[in-house]
């Protein structure tokens, strides 16, 4: 099956400083693809090029078979873009905003009413459609923000941090809705600071840092990149420094550091199985008052690959 989005060798520089370097990936119909990266990693510049706002220095973008550079109108007509900001008129009603986007996308007048009602039902806002947007809650604004990108039934939906600042109930509603769209065959490109969202929604994930994709794959494939090391967080009461020295010598432990007054972090292969040895090693030196074993996850992978957390 042909990919809905294919971008290759995308690069963009500003005054000699590379914002995006040689980025390329594909998104198939019915697939959700995540872009993960800290602020300044190049995600926004990449998206700006994918939606046709910025012209890349090099590279190509093809959406649904239409080359964005050669036939921008055809390519853009296949893209629904959901910006991070609530990019809707706050002094118009939800329905008026949706009608505006219908006209902007050139939908025939006879189809506008039906599409607007369809989207209002989809985002669960039919009962608030005639209220001004500035009276909506944060979650409602987020939902109508997504709805505005669905009116023309795009093949590819690009979402930039679509759940920032919404309550858990609205977040669940949004993610459920996105999963239904993907199940119906829509291709999704998703960026978020919320690792758990990306893990839930996306089939494949690219980790972006300093303008490049540093790793790409399924969640499982990415986690495998850092090996099977677990993280063990210990809270000790006693001679913590001596306990740390002893733990460094324990077989399987690759890293042992004191992170706070009574806190110690261990990185260990199969760490969960080492717990009895860990406790016996510090016995008589310090009392273990709390233990947490964290299995390898995307956060750890991200830290391993970029040297920073996603929210840095």
């Amino acid at each position, binding site marked *: 099956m042909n990919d809905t989005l294919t971008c290759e060798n995308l690069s963009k520089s500003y005054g000699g400083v590379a914002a995006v370097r040689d980025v390329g990936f594909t998104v198939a119909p019915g697939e959700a693809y995540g872009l993960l990266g800290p602020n300044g990693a190049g995600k926004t510049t990449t998206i700006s090029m994918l939606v046709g706002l910025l012209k890349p220095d090099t590279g190509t973008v093809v959406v649904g078979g239409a080359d964005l550079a050669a036939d921008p109108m055809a390519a853009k007509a296949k893209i629904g873009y959901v*910006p991070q900001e609530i990019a809707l008129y706050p002094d118009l009603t939800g329905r008026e905003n949706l009608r505006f986007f219908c006209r902007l996308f050139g939908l025939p007048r006879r189809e506008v009413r039906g599409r607007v009602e369809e989207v209002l039902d989809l985002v669960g806002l039919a009962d608030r459609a005639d209220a001004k947007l500035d009276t909506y809650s944060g979650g409602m604004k987020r939902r109508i923000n997504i709805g505005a990108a669905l009116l023309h039934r795009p093949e590819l939906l690009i979402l930039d941090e679509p759940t920032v600042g919404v309550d858990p109930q609205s977040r669940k509603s949004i993610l459920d809705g996105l999963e239904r769209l993907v199940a119906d065959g829509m291709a999704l490109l998703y960026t978020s600071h919320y690792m758990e969202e990306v893990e839930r929604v996306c089939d494949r994930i690219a980790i972006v840092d300093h303008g490049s994709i540093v790793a790409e794959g399924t969640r499982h494939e990415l986690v495998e990149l850092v090996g099977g090391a677990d993280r063990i967080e210990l809270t000790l009461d006693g001679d913590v420094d001596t306990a740390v020295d002893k733990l460094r010598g324990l077989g399987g432990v690759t890293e042992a550091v004191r992170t706070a007054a009574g806190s110690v972090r261990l990185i260990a292969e199969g760490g969960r199985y080492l717990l009895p040895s860990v406790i016996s090693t510090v016995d008589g030196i310090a009392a273990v008052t709390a233990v947490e074993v964290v299995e390898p996850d995307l956060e750890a992978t991200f830290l391993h690959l970029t040297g920073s957390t996603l929210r840095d």
Partner: protein
Amino acid sequence: MRPHLTPHLRPHPVLALVAANLRRHSRDRVGLFFIVVMPFVSIIFVGMAFGGGAASRLPVGVVAQDSDPVAAAVLAELRAHPDLEVTAVGGEEELRAGVRGGALAAGVVIPPGSARFELVMTESSGSGMAARSAVDASVGRVAGVIEATRAATAAGATPAQAAELVRRAQAASADVEVVGSDMASGTPRGFAYTAPANLLLFTFINSMAVAAALVESRRIGMLPRAFTAPVRRGAVLFGEALSRFIVAAAQAVLIMVVSSLLFGVSWGEPLGVAAVVGVFALVATGAAILMGSLVRSSAQPSAIGPPLGIVLGMLGGCLWPAEAAGETLAAIGHLFPHAWGMDALLTLSRPGTGLGDVLLEVAVLGLMAAVLLSLSLVLFSRRTRTL
């Protein structure tokens, strides 16, 4: 390459943007108040101060001795003038204090036995300018009688014969109706002046104020989002510019229609007026988009626009006649659009004038509009290029 669109995806972004923007403006009650009400409040009050009000008479103080024949004649003329309320003042100091304090629109000092009078007024006062015009007319009539009497006497007539000849000449001249002599020769007064002045003032100020919506659209990312739709970038920019032009033009048309119907203002040849108002609305549109491109907060246009518009209006003669400002300020004023707009509209308000008489003004305003629109649209496009 011309983009090919499927028939069901032929966008109408310009109309969509214009409709959305106008709907937003129509819901801004404060904005509507400044567009629909404020211009007419200003026209009425300033127009009456300039002599447009039917019932108002301008208070003029006079320091003179009734026993002096010339003074008596001037006083009689001043008292006969329908626009003046003449008050005898005891001394020059009192007269000056009255003018300074605003109790008197102007004052006239007539020294005994002298044919040289002193006019006391404040140049920045519209009522002072109007009073000056009336005093000039009255004094001119007395001077005419004196000159005619002197000429008759020099020609050999006795004083009695000279007086009779002058009386006959005055009676004959009373049969000659002079229509709008002040309109044809100098700056129009009353509503004829304040209506065009406020048209320019409010068209510009309200255009700057509606730039707030443009800043808001930019700030919330509405425009970058619009650029991701299958529409040409130029179409989106044109839609935004057209929305602002419609507001500016609607403001101008509203003032013209209402001032014609309610105050009897005659704007002049329609083609010339349309050209002047059209290019001035383009100037205001360019200024609005420039403002919308430069500032960061949507509160800034409302804070910056009105003071800027008022200063430009002052320099351009929208708050008082340009001649009252002096040559230097008038020259500075012509660096900005209001002065050219006022020149053009006041010229057109005179009978027998038309587009041909204001071509220079229209050309200058057109040039200003072209520069402002080009600059602002380039800047605006750059400011909306990224997400």
